[in-house]
């Protein structure tokens, strides 16, 4: 049972049941395209296999070559069509976006609870790992020409004063002095963690993983 709309005058299930036998379904005669012995569908399969292993009866047949290039062309056009559709409608609807962001869960990304010292023994204070990562990102991003990528906190954070190692990857704007930028990031992240958390920061490792450029439209590098 399929949801197919039957093509006019065609028997859908008849050839569907042929399974692997696909030779000549859509073609007049039995000797295939250009007398090569290969059907349109077999040529398509050949294309899907990257024309390997090479079949001389296809490669040396002008009509087959023409059909292969037609197949490639409509395939490329199909991808172009979607790209064109996207270009024609380049903006996302704000209410749609709003609904999306109302549905995604922040909690899933909050990570561990990192305890903070409390002046009142009856009260437990903590900051989430996610919030600490946000601090780290903001500190790194505040450096000119720097975007923070991944941010990882390694080490136990079960009790106040536990020591951690922070690893972050950054991308720098093309032309930004890399060493200087990385060092500034390291310092800012360190001092930000010092003033807003009670973690003992053993080290801040900064990896420059990428270089980005500003395009006129502000688009991706």
């Amino acid at each position, binding site marked *: 049972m*399929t*949801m*197919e*709309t*039957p*093509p006019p005058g*065609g028997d859908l299930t008849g*050839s*569907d*049941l*042929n*399974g*692997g036998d*696909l030779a000549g*379904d*859509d073609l007049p005669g039995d000797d295939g395209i250009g007398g090569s012995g290969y059907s*349109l569908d077999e040529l*398509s399969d050949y294309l899907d296999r990257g024309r390997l292993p090479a079949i001389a009866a296809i490669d040396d047949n002008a009509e087959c070559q023409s059909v292969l290039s*037609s*197949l490639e*062309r*409509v395939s490329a*056009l*199909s*991808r*172009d*069509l*979607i*790209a*064109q*559709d*996207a*270009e024609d409608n380049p*903006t*996302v*609807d704000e209410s*749609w*976006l709003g609904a*999306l962001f109302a549905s*995604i869960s*922040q909690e*899933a*990304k909050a*990570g561990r609870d990192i305890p903070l010292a409390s002046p009142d023994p009856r009260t437990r204070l903590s900051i989430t790992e*996610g919030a600490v*990562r946000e601090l780290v*990102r903001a500190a790194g991003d505040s450096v000119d020409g720097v*975007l923070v*990528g*991944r*941010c990882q906190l390694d080490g136990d954070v079960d009790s106040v004063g536990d020591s951690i190692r922070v690893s972050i*990857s950054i*991308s720098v704007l093309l032309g930004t002095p890399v060493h200087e930028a990385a060092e500034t990031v390291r310092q800012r992240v360190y001092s930000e963690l010092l003033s807003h958390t009670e973690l003992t920061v053993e080290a801040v490792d900064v990896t420059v993983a*990428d270089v*980005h*450029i500003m*395009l006129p439209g*502000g688009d*991706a*590098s």
Partner: protein
Amino acid sequence: MTDLAAASDELLAQRSADGDTVAFAVLVRRHGPYLRAFATRLTGSAADADDAVQEALITAWDALSSLEDLAKVRAWLTSIVSRKATDRIRRRKPSSELDEQRMDDLGRGPEQRAIASSQLAALADVLAALPEGQRQCWVLKEVGGYSYDEIATELGVAPAVVRGRLARARATVISEMEVWR
């Protein structure tokens, strides 16, 4: 103020995996139009496409940290959109009336078909005129890059059905597009 719009997909995906909604919004704005276009051609319905893309992005947000090659985020998002869109297709009641209505969302209407002004417009019309199941298989294979077996799984039909639909779609598309060579 840093401009995340300049960031690579990989960096945005890393930040999103770490819980940065602002970075995720940049990714969504960047790839949303493509995902929507893909889902619209696949489902034949702009409304279904919007819902499928939204569901896919909610799933993606939760699953981002498990994605190994973050630079390939668009291809990964497209695969989730395919799944959500084909879920919708499978849930639909088969109804030729509805199908015809959906067809009108695509292409540019039959009266304009004869005067398609470009190859792309012509292809849009040809695809819109295909029976729905054929068009779905075509989009999944040629744009999504899926194998026959993968398409069969996604659409919940036998691989032989996919093969048959693609054979028909291929014959139609090739012959209709012949004049544009």
